[in-house]
């Protein structure tokens, strides 16, 4: 009847393991100073590369501008000739159009000039006046060049 013996549960031999309550810090690869130094170094290196890139971009911009300046006289000479031709065409067209109007003088409003102080000065006309006797499409093409081209 007394064959069942009680067995008290006891700690293992040598006692329980100690409880690891101490803080385990993450492994440190770099010290704080190294991190700050590395950050500064990398930023400096990146800034230098950025600077080199800026130089190249600037150089290309200057090259583009330089090329434009080189061909400007050619374009401007052609433009001036065409411009003067159109001015003359406008004047001839006006003379033809107003031939039958009594007292009309070309370039003036019945003899009243636009500019009184310098009657023989060459004063360039306004945009719409310049395109007065052309077709509408060429005027619009010039006016809204960006969207229509």
């Amino acid at each position: 009847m007394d064959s069942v013996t009680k067995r008290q549960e006891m700690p293992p031999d040598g006692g329980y393991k100690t409880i690891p309550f101490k803080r385990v810090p993450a492994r440190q690869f770099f010290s704080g100073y190294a991190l700050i130094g590395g950050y500064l170094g990398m930023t400096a290196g990146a800034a230098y590369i950025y600077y080199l890139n800026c130089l190249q971009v600037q150089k290309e911009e200057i090259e583009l501008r330089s090329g434009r300046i080189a061909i400007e006289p050619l374009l401007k000479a052609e433009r001036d000739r065409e411009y003067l031709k159109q001015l003359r065409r406008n004047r001839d067209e006006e003379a033809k159009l107003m031939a039958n109007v009594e007292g009309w003088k070309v370039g003036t409003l019945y003899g009243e000039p636009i500019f009184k102080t310098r009657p023989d000065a060459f004063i360039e006309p306004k945009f719409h006046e310049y395109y007065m006797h052309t077709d509408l499409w060429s005027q619009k093409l010039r006016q809204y060049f960006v969207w229509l081209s």
Partner: protein
Amino acid sequence: MSIPEEVYLPTEEELTVTEVNLTGNLLKAAAFHYGKACLSENNEFMLCRNELDDPRACINEGKAVTSCALNFFRQVKKSCAGEFMQYANCIDKSSSTSAYGPCRKTQAAFDKCMKDNLNMERAPFDYFARVHVHKTDRPRPLPEPIPHFPDPPVALPEDAPKPPAKYGSRYLFIW
């Protein structure tokens, strides 16, 4: 109302010359050689144009520019047409701004051809953006004369009557 009859405008015949019938990318591709080949004509024209600010005064200089350009492009066409068209095509199709950057290989081929056949060096990348001194025989333009008006308003005499204002102050918000 356009330009009056008294103002001189050159006639159609005076203004008609053979124009350089090329598109932008071709001009851009040739710019650095062209600008150097026609430097004196270009500078002369731009000087005239900026000094006088009158398109009528610089017709002959403009014609010189165009004929020099025509001459230049004829030479290019004779000697380096293939390389030139290749380069211009690259410039046309490589960027939206006709940049020179993406076309260095075709540019090198074109430059070499120009150097070998026409003995024209490519100008440095910022050559035309620099300040140039241009020697010319053009007379310096006269300064604009100070306008003289014959009828300046006469000042009031010392003893002119100065009655008070008829309708009060003209300062609308201070009365």
